[in-house]
């Protein structure tokens, strides 16, 4: 895994000039998101129980998760889709290592690390604005929730990429994904009940941004259930197992591009 990261950094080093420009770009992205939050809190005190510091944490978490997805998950899955279409997945399947593991670690978009830094900073500022201290247990739970969230997102993406075995042209799926993911910028509690339900159980977006941020805040006002970590663990395990099974099933339908 480190080896692939090294290769990616080497690949990236060829285009070093882009790095700073891209760093600024993702800062602008974060600023835009913060302006939206600021605007909202000019008009209201709370948003479904979430106050300004809460929202800062949520936006920070959102940016970190989005960054993580762009660093590791999306680039790899995009490459899987490309490999399926062009038949170059052959080379992955010929290697004597687990194919799912190999396709999941090949790409590493180094410069998106800025998203992690900015998002982390925003979340830290939000947390420091709160009156009470945040304990070690909360931070540990938060990290656990983030990890579970990543596992869920990874599984969703692996499943999306696996669809590529049947439907070769699924590039637009990425746009659809980001459009749905946008909803994670706000706490799921602000949405109508049926959307909340869908974002919790159908597309478990709640577990990816709202719930991790909520566990860090540990404030009943946010409406995040105390049992969220247990749900998150359960859903993460189930989705990882399901997507892995689906991947193996999909492989049987891989026909390779005509040579």
């Amino acid at each position, binding site marked *: 895994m480190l080896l692939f990261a090294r290769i990616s950094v080497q690949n990236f080093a060829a285009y070093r000039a882009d790095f700073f420009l891209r760093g600024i770009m993702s800062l602008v992205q974060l600023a835009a998101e913060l302006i939206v939050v600021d605007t909202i809190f000019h008009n209201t005190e709370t948003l479904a129980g979430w106050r300004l510091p809460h929202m800062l944490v949520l936006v920070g978490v959102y940016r970190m998760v989005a960054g993580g997805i762009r660093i590791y998950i999306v680039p790899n899955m995009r490459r899987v889709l490309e490999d399926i279409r062009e038949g170059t997945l052959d080379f992955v*399947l*010929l290697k004597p290592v687990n194919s799912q593991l190999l396709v999941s670690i090949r790409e590493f978009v180094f410069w998106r690390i800025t998203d992690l830094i900015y998002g982390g900073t925003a979340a830290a500022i939000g947390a420091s604005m709160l009156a009470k201290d945040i304990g070690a247990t909360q931070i540990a739970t938060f990290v656990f929730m983030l990890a579970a969230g990543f596992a869920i997102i990874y599984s969703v993406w692996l499943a999306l990429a696996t669809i590529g075995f049947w439907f070769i042209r699924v590039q637009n799926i990425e746009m659809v994904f980001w459009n749905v993911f946008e909803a994670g910028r706000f706490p799921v509690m602000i949405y109508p009940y049926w959307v909340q339900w869908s974002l919790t159980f159908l597309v478990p977006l709640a577990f990816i941004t709202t719930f991790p941020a909520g566990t860090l805040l540990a404030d009943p006002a946010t409406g995040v259930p105390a049992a969220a970590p247990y749900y998150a663990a359960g859903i993460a395990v189930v989705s990882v197992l399901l997507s892995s099974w689906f991947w193996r099933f999909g492989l049987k339908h891989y*026909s390779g591009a005509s040579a």
Partner: protein
Amino acid sequence: MAQIEVEHLGKTFKVPEREAGLVASIGSLFRRKYRDVRAVDDINFTVEAGEIVGFLGPNGAGKTTTLKMLSGLLHPTAGEARVLGHTPWKREADYLRRISMLMGQRSQLQWDLPAVDSFYMHGAVYDIPKADYQQTLDELVELLAIGPVLKKQVRTLSLGERMKCEICASLLHRPAVLFLDEPTIGVDVEMQARIRSFIGQYNRKHGATIILTSHYMADVTALCKRIIVIDQGQLLFDGSLPALSEKMAPFKVIKIDLDAKCDDYPFAEIGEVISCDDRKVELKVPKAEAAAATAKLLTDLSVLDLTIEDPPIEDVIKQVFGGRAQRDDAETTETAGASA
């Protein structure tokens, strides 16, 4: 001991099909019609350890599909195969570690990095001990003469150089069975010869079993004692090169040098005239009539030189597949156009 055993192997692709035109296009969105294409149809053969076998056949014959099933990339829809005692499509790590598949039309090297970085990664993925890795790499680099290009970005290499690097990458883990799909495609004649001799050397030195497909007949005639001919997914022939021309081309080529021009002599009555160039004539004659034809030519004409040869293997293959295509046209059979 047989290293590769193939029994009744078959692969059928479902190919969506639709009529031309807008209405049909829209219709196909809702109800797709599929047509079964038998890319490989009931193939049987075995290959012994250390053999080099050439797969011949036109595009779409099923050569690559067969190789892909044997290397575990594709699941067959019928039949069984055992390679090195494994079922390939289970893709067990122990199996994949002992085989290699080279696809001439694809690159497995990292495009933006020097080849040596891709080799290093390959070594890590295959878990090759450091000492072995270095020794094998040194040996391959020397045999393939790629020392000077190792540190150049792969994208900047010529096709021939890149192909040699691809070969190097696929041999780093010292595979016991090698599937080479068009290993010399696109490279110039000299480079083809070098790659060819390298493959032969590797086979002799390591006793590797090799199945090779190629469009270049020279690859096959130089390397393979045994030929398997596949067409439309079916095995047409399995045997030695001379046996192939014996079976597939029951004719001889008679070449004569005359001491004077003989334009009015009815060569066409003796056999098919391949060329008639001033005083050199080439005739294609059915094998059974070759002796009689020679005798007649010698009595009728003043011949300086006469040779009787087997037809070049290219012509044999052309005749086999050409004949097949004509028959197909007559029967208006659909051609298998799916994965080759």
